[in-house]
């Protein structure tokens, strides 16, 4: 029973003890690093295999369809069939392409997707590296994706890819700012950038304390990873597939893996920052429950993103940029300011995480910001409609 309570930690201990029996110390370290590294790299692949199936099923149900149901029970092996198909496809490099850059881009983007997993806390102590700048690390790794996408778009020597790359620059740079601001709010409130500690200090999930930051982060993260309704980078009805239109076979597969790896990663980071991570009932009794709570919460976030994809049309580029700069940035700036003020009220030395009073004040401020934003948006829409004489807008 005791073994089960700390299942994963004990598992790691006994594994170390077992290989320690026939390996020197440095060998044990090397093997452990290798195992952790392999797990991290495999994460995006596993995420892709499960999430593609899930996305197809979810969107299928949304669209009155059954979704995949031929390969395996409930079609769960569909993703493997797709993977095999992708592996045996011909690898085409367009004749006008810049080959080194063209080949480097998928590696870089998949690498960035894998790196993101290093700071995701699956449970207490179950984190690749509890970096003291974990939150910043997330942003830093995300910015590498931008470069990979530009490289892919430029090197393909295709106009649709280039247009996709143009959009990438505008979109990713713009949405990085609200994303950083909303992360900064969480960092401010918890007083730490370590992802593990953020969870530890999240007595109440921040989604109920900082709803503005949560919404901003989710939208900005959806834009950063090119999910609907911000999927302008690959907008298949406009620029076909955008930056990776010329890729095929395994290289295309890497983009796919990066997309779903990033999807799971942003869901995991949302869970960490706003949904209380691995916290949940009975975790203090049985820490092994933590990872399950974590995955369940992440999947819930992913489901919301898939739901949005299945139902909403896409923004236009100017509307999307205006949304980032005129709505998300002011709202999250106001939120950051309010959080800073609140945290100075009744501040105790050596305080870890917000007190109850502070949390209530934060919530009040957030609700006020939401209300003001909604009010201003509605008024702007009506004014705009009145200017152009549209009815019913």
């Amino acid at each position: 029973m005791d073994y089960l309570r700390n299942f994963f930690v004990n598992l790691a201990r006994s594994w170390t003890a077992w290989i320690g029996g026939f390996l020197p110390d440095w060998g044990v370290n090397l093997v452990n690093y290798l195992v952790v590294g392999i797990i991290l790299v495999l994460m995006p692949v596993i995420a892709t295999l499960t999430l593609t199936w899930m996305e197809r099923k979810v969107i299928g149900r949304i669209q009155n369809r059954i979704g995949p149901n031929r390969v395996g029970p409930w079609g769960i092996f569909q993703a493997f069939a797709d993977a095999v198909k992708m592996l045996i496809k011909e690898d085409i490099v367009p004749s006008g392409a810049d080959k080194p850059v063209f080949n480097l881009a998928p590696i870089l983007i998949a690498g960035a997707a894998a790196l993101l997993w290093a700071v995701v806390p699956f449970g207490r102590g179950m984190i690749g590296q509890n970096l003291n700048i974990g939150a910043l690390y997330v942003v830093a790794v995300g910015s590498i994706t931008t470069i990979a996408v530009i490289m892919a778009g430029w090197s393909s020597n295709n106009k649709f890819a280039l247009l996709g790359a143009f959009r990438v620059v505008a979109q990713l740079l713009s949405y990085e700012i609200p994303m950083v601001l909303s992360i900064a709010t969480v960092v401010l409130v918890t007083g730490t950038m370590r992802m593990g500690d953020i969870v530890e200090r999240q007595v109440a999930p921040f989604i109920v304390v900082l709803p503005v930051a949560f919404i901003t982060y989710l939208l900005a993260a959806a834009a950063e990873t090119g999910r609907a309704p911000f999927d302008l980078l690959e907008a298949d009805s406009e620029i076909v597939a955008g930056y990776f239109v010329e890729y095929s076979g395994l290289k295309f597969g890497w983009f796919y893996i990066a997309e779903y790896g990033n999807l799971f990663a942003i869901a995991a980071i949302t869970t960490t920052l706003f949904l209380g991570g691995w916290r949940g009932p009975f975790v203090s009794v049985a820490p092994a429950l933590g990872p399950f709570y974590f995955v369940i919460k992440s999947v819930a976030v992913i489901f919301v993103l898939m739901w949005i994809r299945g139902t909403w049309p896409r923004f236009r580029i100017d509307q999307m940029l205006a949304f980032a700069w005129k709505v998300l940035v002011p709202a999250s700036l106001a939120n950051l300011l309010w959080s800073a003020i609140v945290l100075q009220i009744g501040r105790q030395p050596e305080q870890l995480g917000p007190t109850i009073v502070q949390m209530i004040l934060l919530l009040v401020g957030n609700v006020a910001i939401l209300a003001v934003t909604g009010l201003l948006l509605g008024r702007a829409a009506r004014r705009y409609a009145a200017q152009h004489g549209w009815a019913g807008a």
Partner: protein
Amino acid sequence: MTAETIATAQATAAASHPYNEVVPGAVLEATKTGLVVSPDRIVELARYLRDEQGYDYCSMVTSIDWPQYFEVVYYLYGAATPKDALVLRVRLTDKANPVMPSLTSVWRGADFQEREVYDLMGVRFEGHPNLRRILLWEGFEGHPLRKDYKEPYFEEESKPFKSRHPDGAHQWAEDRVPWKDNVSYPVGWDPDLWRSPEVQYRRIMGVDEATGNGDGLRTERILVNMGPQHPSTHGVFRMVIAVEGENVVGLEPEMGYLHRCHEKIGERNTYIMNIAFTDRLDYVSSMSNNLGYVLAVEKLMGLQVPERAEYIRVIMAELTRIISHLIAVGFLFNDLGAYFTPALYGMRERELILDLFEAAAGSRMMCNYMRFGGVMADLPAGWVERARNLVWNRLPKVMEDFENLLSGNEIFQSRTHGVGVLTAAEAINYSMSGPMLRASGVPYDVRRAEPYSIYDRFEFDVCSRPEGDVWARFRVRMDEIYQSLRILKQALDGLPEGPIMPPGKKQYQVRVPAGEAYARIEGPKGELGFFVVSDGKPNPYRYHVRAPTFINLTSLEKMTLGHKIADAVVILGAVDIVLGEVDR
């Protein structure tokens, strides 16, 4: 000659025609089938007709190859204030080099149609801004609608052809024709060296004009080919777009990838064979196509359609309109990036209606259901109940879902308001028709303006909106579904018992007296017209389709300029094209 008798029938003293007092020498002859106009004065006369007489709508342009001359035919109507048809006919006696002035300066809607006449008939229009081939490619030799045109692997003048298996063995077409494989190219043309002609896009690329935004900042235009392989062009349609950044600064539609010269095929088919071919025009709404064609031929034959058949026809046509609009709305959302969900919801209802079609006609998409004088088969038992259930119970609920889920969506609204605006005057001048015209604030509906079949018996509103943007087009289509349901309720209630074909033996070969007829219906996508010229033989002498989506595309450039690439796709989606009809 038959042709002569048609043309000169009931000629009046042309000199005394009232139009000649304004534009002297314009009307050469006034026949029963229209005014024969001098090519030299036609532009003046057209301008006068548009500005003073209210013929602001150039509905159809076509041409006929008579033995002595080429005849170019313009069908004019009034759209702002409905007027009956006025037909202008221009006879070009120089058969070696037929030239006439273009009327695009008067009606922009003549643009694509004159290009089509040039392409297929070889009549040159002087002053046309962009007289290139439109349906055929540059390497095509000859003009296929001319009577002396012999296509490669030509079989015979007209159907029914002789057997391809004369002695039980197949014989290749090229072995039977005397000139064998006569594929030929224009002089100086090498198919192997052919490249996409960039030169023809100089206009939209602005090569000849200085580009810049007024600040002295020069921006470079990029030519982007949207299509023919593109997920949002609704088929093999190609938009050549010049962009500065994301902004569209030039657009050139390229079509004809699906061209099979439907009209030439129609001239070789017998009349009754053609019905099946009309199914393939706008393959989403085959029933409407059938209806338009049989109406044209019935006009020539002077047939009386039994009451029950009329009602069935109206029911089928309105069901078709619902299908077409559901698909148009659904795929508009697809173009907006809504990932197929609305489209599939529309498809689900379409399946139910197609079930009804299958029960009545035996086929789901290619119904081939109408016949001259009636319909092919009576409705099976229980059909009306199923239709009633659909019309009274199911579809209104579905429409409610659509309204709740789609119309209020903020992203959808912000994407469609003010996008692709056409004013009422522009829409009329560009010969827009159907929902495109009505969304620009012109309440013009053929069912009202010139009722055909039994549409004058039904109560319904002509849906129209003033905005003229994509939102208005969406709204008009949604509203028209409600009106179709209204008509369907009345028609299903009033459906009488009785025969479905006129009395007499079933005819496999109809006899159509010599003459000319133009029948137009309000198809789901716009004004669908069928122009049939008969010389008394089993095959039509000339057969022309006024394809609404083809002509609606004329304004695509006008609507798209100044918008973003993403909007170009949406505007095209709101035109609701079907390439089977555009390319014919």
